[in-house]
């Protein structure tokens, strides 16, 4: 590469020297490569001289230069371009934006901007164009695989669903691993109340319209985030929104139209059909029947025998597997993403107004997953002498329909749970008409599951959220180096959620009333409706003094000191009834039963004092020292004030040693150490009673309970015991790194090593039930993260055709160093006998489940009676959740006004549990269940253990798995020791994450509609997914187990991920 550049340079020089010298007038226009807009103020200079002119307001220039001259076009934030004059009289240049610029100014702590070179820690900024390349509707949906050390995944396939963001791996065992979102200097609530394992209402950071974001800056280590206080300890995502630009009003339209479909689904086996135990049984919800033979057979409910309600009718069809059966359960979704921005004003008063609208109807038939969003924002900046003020007002409105995933409640199946149980030969598409006499509640083919489309259409959840947020930010510049800043924000939202489940009861005498071939009735479901409102509030005040002063020729001081007061909380009320009086009418008083209500209030205050100073020496050595002291309302008096320091050092080698080389353009080393203290949630220090709700494994007894006609109230001592002795949790973060640029900045390398200790973690630790409690809330756990991040960006080809790429690599190893005293194992999540646990000395997030007992030679010990493996006494480790590494590869090719980009994303290693695989194994749909063609088999490599007189001997196993024991072999109730290897899967994936093709329309065309520029893009997201052969069941990124550490356990019958493809148009007037 270097050679190629040198050769071209020589050729250039050769050309120049051979030309004649004669001055001529040259004119031209300079435009920006990515949007085609003219750039005013570009310096056009004759190379090697001091002669130069700037471009005017429309990007035009006129200069007199000799034939043999080379014109150099340079402008801040763009790559300098040299053009030989030759015999040209018109030179039009389009400059490419420079993402690797030396004097890049970035947003750091508390909304303060700093020169990137002064930072002693890793920092990544992504710009609007990258964020919105594929028109995502969520804030970070377009950044997957693009930033080292940042893991972004869409956990569900529903529009507006949660985007899970984790910076530098997991460190908190209690699940508080989310970064803090900060928008224009103020904290932004990211939690969406109402979401749980079954319903995903999305995360609240997606309330921000990505179209109005100017850039996102990601701060990962404590040295970078310490000034944000407790909440910054897991990293900060700084969102800076667009501001008005002085000048005549410009109007920008963004319009994106996407189609969505299911990216990947499981593929059932296609050898055996409906039934159980090789027997064809019309009412079975499994594929344990005979071999599919293509012979036409009856299916579904029959009226000939006992199912009186359909008369003497019967469906028939060939007994054969159906192609694309599962994928056919889904439709193609449509997503429209439109926004308009208006910007303008004078230097003294600028405005920016934005309106965004999203309509997204997902892949489920009908509108059970419809998502609509409106965003309206106004920005106004006013400057009057030394005083300036910015005001930002925003309104975000969401309406969404959400489908339940996971395990059904109140006897009703969820759509996905019902889908998994459909035999391989039953056409899922036909079942869509759930009111049809053969597919309705009375006559759906099995009483053991519901028609999935019934569940989809008749059960549901709906949420409406209205959010107002904004801030006023005032600055008074006492002196040119001293500014007083006051910022006050408010973020209030009201969320209304309604959830309902249908009342279902098969008609008397119908197939599913027990008149099926198995005499099994469908358990009626009583119907349920819940109304919940939640109000969230957050007020943040900040008063700070900012200093920026050149102390002498060598020393420069920047710094700030301030006070921050934060007041936030939530207030929620929910009411529910069960057993509807009138089916299908979802109103809180539509029941014989009294509604039950719950109120939850949470309130927290924090006061922080902070100061930070950066001393720069000769613009190559920068030392930053800072500290913050927080006072929190959630810890006990006397223990609730805590201080934590941070410091970092940046050393620009190239400037320090005056290296002016075309090969090494820039070199900087970084080192930082920072601490953060964290408090806990409200109400975690005093023992309480709770209203009594007795869990019965399935179902509950809920007080008040009847006592001879009178209700009795009950309160019980909380199962968690608390203490006022809690101290703040502490994160200690050490980081080293460097930035290097080569060959005139065409190649850039950034690497980081970090080591983080998170100690005195506040969490609810399980304790012996013999203590009278099941958990104690304590300062206990300690964890360690070590990791490396590496980013390489390069421009291998420049000129008319350019190729830019960024390669990122990250690896995080997280280890548990300690848990509570006497506790060496902490349960983080579980499903049946599989558990996600933290074990002292092990990587954070070990997946354990039963395994077979092994003979000393490694062979599997089986029970002589039934030939099935004998289960290990304890559950054992299958692996952990951590990926060995993650890689991203981002490419952009540009030719004139056409740009093609694609992103590859690779994550290697780790394990997860699949509740989908669990059910597929049970019903015989998983291809692994066709082992040995379902003929009787003796478990390979197995032995029988015989103990006589204390001596155990092992002999060859001769007991085959036969008959009904074959289905049992694939389900956990009867073959725990063996089956979990089928359910704990490899987390590896390789994805073609994004492809974009954009074309900037020639001015000639765009000006016809009065536009100054127009850009058309085609894009696709999540286009292709490769999974390892051992996991052909489910995408490891999806999870319905939340969006924090617990979600890494895996999934429990969740929705499949989506693929997006579409087109967008951006027009500026």
């Amino acid at each position, binding site marked *: 590469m270097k050679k190629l550049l040198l050769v071209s340079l020589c050729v250039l020089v050769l050309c120049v020297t051979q030309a004649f010298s004669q001055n001529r007038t040259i004119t031209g226009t300079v435009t920006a490569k990515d949007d085609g807009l003219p750039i005013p103020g570009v310096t056009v200079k004759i190379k090697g001289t001091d002669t130069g002119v700037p471009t005017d307001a429309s990007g035009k220039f006129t200069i007199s230069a000799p034939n043999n001259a080379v014109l150099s076009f340079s402008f801040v934030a763009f790559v300098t371009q040299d053009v030989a004059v030759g015999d040209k009289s018109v030179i039009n240049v389009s400059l490419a934006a420079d993402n690797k610029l030396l004097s890049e100014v970035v947003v750091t702590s508390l909304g303060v901007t700093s020169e990137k070179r002064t930072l002693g820690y890793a920092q990544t900024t992504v710009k609007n164009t990258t964020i919105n390349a594929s028109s995502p509707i969520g804030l970070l949906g377009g950044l997957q695989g693009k930033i080292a050390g940042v893991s972004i995944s869409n956990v569900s396939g529903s529009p507006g669903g949660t985007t899970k963001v984790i910076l530098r791996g997991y460190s908190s065992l209690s699940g508080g691993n989310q970064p803090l979102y900060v928008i224009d200097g103020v904290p932004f609530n990211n939690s969406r109340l109402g979401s749980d394992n079954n319903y995903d209402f999305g995360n609240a950071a997606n309330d921000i319209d990505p179209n109005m974001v100017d850039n996102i800056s990601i701060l990962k280590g404590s040295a970078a985030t310490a000034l944000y206080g407790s909440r910054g300890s897991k990293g900060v995502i700084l969102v800076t929104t667009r501001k008005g630009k002085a000048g005549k009003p410009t109007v920008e339209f963004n319009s994106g139209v996407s189609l969505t479909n299911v990216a990947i689904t499981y593929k059932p086996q296609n050898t055996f059909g409906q039934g159980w135990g090789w027997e064809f049984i019309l009412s079975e919800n499994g594929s344990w029947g005979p071999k599919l033979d293509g012979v036409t057979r009856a299916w579904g409910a029959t009226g000939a025998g006992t199912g009186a309600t359909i008369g003497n009718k019967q469906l028939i069809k060939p007994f054969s597997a159906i192609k694309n059966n599962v994928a056919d359960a889904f439709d193609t979704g449509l997503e429209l993403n439109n926004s308009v921005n208006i910007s303008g004003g004078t230097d003294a008063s600028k405005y920016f107004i934005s309106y965004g609208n999203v309509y997204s109807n997902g892949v489920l038939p009908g509108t059970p997953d419809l998502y609509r969003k409106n965003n309206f924002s106004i920005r106004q900046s006013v400057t009057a002498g030394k005083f300036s003020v910015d005001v930002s007002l925003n309104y975000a409105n969401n309406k969404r329909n959400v489908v339940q995933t996971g395990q059904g409640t109140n006897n009703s199946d969820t759509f996905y749970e019902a889908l998994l149980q459909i035999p391989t030969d039953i056409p899922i598409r036909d079942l869509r008409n759930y009111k049809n006499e053969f597919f309705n509640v009375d006559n759906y083919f099995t009483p053991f599951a519901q028609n999935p489309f019934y569940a989809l259409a008749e059960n549901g959840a709906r949420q409406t959220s209205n959010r107002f947020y904004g801030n006023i930010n005032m600055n008074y510049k006492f002196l040119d180096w001293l500014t007083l800043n006051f910022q006050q924000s408010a973020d209030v939202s009201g969320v209304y959620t309604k959830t309902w489940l249908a009342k279902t009861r098969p008609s008397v005498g119908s197939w599913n009333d027990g008149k099926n071939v198995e005499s099994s009735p469908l358990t009626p479901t009583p119907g349920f409706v819940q109304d919940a409102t939640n109000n969230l509030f957050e007020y943040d005040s900040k008063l700070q003094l900012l200093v920026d002063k050149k102390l002498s020729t060598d020393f420069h001081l920047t710094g700030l000191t301030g006070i921050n007061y934060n007041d936030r909380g939530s207030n929620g009320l929910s009411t529910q009834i069960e057993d509807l009086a009138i089916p299908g009418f979802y109103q809180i008083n539509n029941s014989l039963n009294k509604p039950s209500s719950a109120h939850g209030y949470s309130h927290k205050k924090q006061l922080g004092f902070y100061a930070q100073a950066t001393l720069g020496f000769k613009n190559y050595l920068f030392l930053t020292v800072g500290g913050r002291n927080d006072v929190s309302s959630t810890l006990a008096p006397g223990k609730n004030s805590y201080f934590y320091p941070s410091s970092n050092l940046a050393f620009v080698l190239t400037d320090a040693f005056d290296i002016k080389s075309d090969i090494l353009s820039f070199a900087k080393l970084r080192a930082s150490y920072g601490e953060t203290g964290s408090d806990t949630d409200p109400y975690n220090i005093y023992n309480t009673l709770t209203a009594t709700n007795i869990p019965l*494994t399935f179902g509950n007894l809920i007080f008040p*309970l009847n006592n001879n006609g009178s209700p009795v109230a009950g309160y019980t001592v909380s199962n968690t015991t608390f203490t006022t002795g809690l101290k703040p949790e502490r994160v200690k973060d050490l980081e080293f790194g460097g930035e290097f640029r080569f060959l005139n900045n065409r190649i850039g390398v950034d690497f980081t090593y970090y080591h983080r200790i998170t100690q005195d973690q506040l969490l609810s630790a399980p304790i012996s039930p013999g203590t009278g409690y099941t958990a104690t809330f304590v300062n206990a756990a300690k964890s360690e993260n070590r990791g490396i991040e590496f980013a390489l960006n390069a421009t291998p080809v420049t000129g008319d055709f350019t190729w830019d790429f960024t390669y990122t690599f990250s690896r995080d190893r997280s280890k548990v160093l300690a848990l509570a005293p006497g506790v060496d194992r902490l349960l983080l999540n579980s499903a049946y006998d599989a558990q996600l646990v933290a074990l002292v000395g092990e990587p954070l997030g070990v997946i354990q489940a039963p395994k077979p007992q092994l003979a000393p030679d490694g062979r599997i010990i089986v029970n002589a009676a039934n030939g099935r493996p004998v289960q290990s006494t304890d559950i054992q480790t299958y692996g952990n959740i951590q990926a060995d590494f993650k890689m991203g590869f981002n490419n952009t090719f540009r030719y004139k006004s056409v740009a093609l980009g694609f992103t590859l994303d690779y994550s290697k290693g780790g394990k997860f549990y699949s509740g989908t695989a669990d059910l597929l194994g049970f019903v015989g749909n998983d291809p692994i269940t066709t082992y040995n063609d379902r003929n009787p088999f003796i478990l390979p490599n197995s032995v029988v253990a015989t103990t006589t007189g204390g001596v155990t001997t092992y002999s060859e196993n001769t007991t085959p798995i036969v008959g009904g024991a074959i289905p049992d072999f694939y389900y956990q109730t009867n073959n725990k020791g063996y089956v979990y290897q089928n359910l704990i899967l490899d987390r590896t994936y390789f994805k073609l994450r994004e492809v974009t093709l954009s074309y900037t329309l020639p001015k000639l065309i765009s000006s016809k509609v009065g536009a100054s520029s127009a850009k058309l893009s085609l894009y696709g997201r999540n286009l292709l997914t490769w999974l390892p052969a051992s996991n052909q069941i489910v995408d490891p990124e999806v999870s319905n187990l939340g969006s924090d550490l617990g979600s890494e356990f895996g999934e429990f019958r969740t929705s499949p991920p989506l693929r997006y493809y579409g087109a967008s148009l951006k027009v500026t007037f």
Partner: protein
Amino acid sequence: MKKHIIKTILATSVICFSVTSCKKITDINISPNNPPVEVATPQVLFPSAVQSTAGRIGGEVGIIGNIWSQFTTQAQLSNQYKDIDTYGMTRQDRNANYNNLFAGALTDYKLTIEKAKAGGPIQYYLMATVMKAYTYQVLVDLYDQVPYTEALQGQANLQPKFDNGYDIYKALLAEIDAALAATASSGDLSPAATAATDFVFSGDIAKWRAFANTLKLKMYLRMVNAKPAEAEAGVRKLYTDGAVFLTGAAGVSTYVNVPDQGNPMYEYNIRRLNSATNLRASVTFMTWLISNGDTRKAAYFGTATNAIHQGDFNATNASQPTYATAATLVQNATDPVFFISAAESYFMQAEANLRYGVGPAASVSYNLGVNAAFAQVGATRGALYPYPAAGTFDQNLEAIIVQKWASMPGSHAIEAFFEQERTGYPKISPTNSKDVANYIPGQWSYSIGGVTANKAFPKRMVFPDSERSRNKNTPTEVPITTPVWWGK
């Protein structure tokens, strides 16, 4: 200028501090959602605790009892209780009973007793003590050893030691005696003070005393194999002291057919599962009922007469065409949960007379017991099951215990399992119930799906993982087939 800045900062800090002092900031940290533990009263704690006991022992423990006592078996081609029916439960299975009895019921009884002793009403002292003893008795009988002397201390002792079942029994008997003494002559013991919150006896303290005495009788009888002398002395003392025993049931019979308000086994097994037909009649019990012409059959299983051989859930329809229509256990939301039933009280009195000659004749109590057992389900006894007055001790005991067994399907079934382990009745069948020619109806037949070594029946639960993984004092695990300390 610099001085000025410092002054400004200081002034601002002072203002902020005085506006929101550190004290004030923590004032908001008292939960408005849950009351502080200090405000607890016996009136809210005791009913919670009673329902926790009823919810677990009459719920999932009852399901284990129904299967292990061979009243029912897991339905064919269905799955819910296979771990129980194969005797394949491990330390990870069914932990919630243990967890909730300790953290739910026992903690609340403990605090109720403390509050009642400190401020009354003093009746709660006896009521909570009896319920605590009953709850502990079931735990001891299920697990053999559990924490007692160091238990229920919260953070003060995170690793409570386990006590031997016998030691816990002795301590519980002493606790009951102390509570009986403390409430023998205290001031106002009228029902008014506790009636509203007493699901068991509506505040009738005399009935609580009878419950206390009957529970003592049960615990002494449990010891007849392991501690025969103590058992005999304890039973005799009850009679010499003129103890009054239960003549009606001690239990909760106030459940209604409203979601989350019904009988716990019904809520669990019927209302909340997607199949209400998991518990099907076992051939063991069904053949016994039919061969005896027992009129309770309809109450237990309805009109259907087909049954499934114990643990034969993997049989195909082709091989066992009657399984699909096997009778299901009749359950209703309003079914009671018995802690001790009237029949059980009489059968224990019969056994006391049979063993030690105390109290009314065994035949008298036996007949009262059988009558009560039929009355319990609204059936008529007729001339069924006469007492084998001329029989041997073993024949008499078998008659008493088998009748006790037959009175216990439903929410009280775990006691039938305990009694078989203590007495050996009903007898273990030497042959499987499928061996129709040789099988004697009612004899327990080893589960066809059973996974234990040497076809041994389960005798206990293994210590739960929730305790083992958090408490290093948990005893070494022994097989599920190891008898508990009082086992025969």
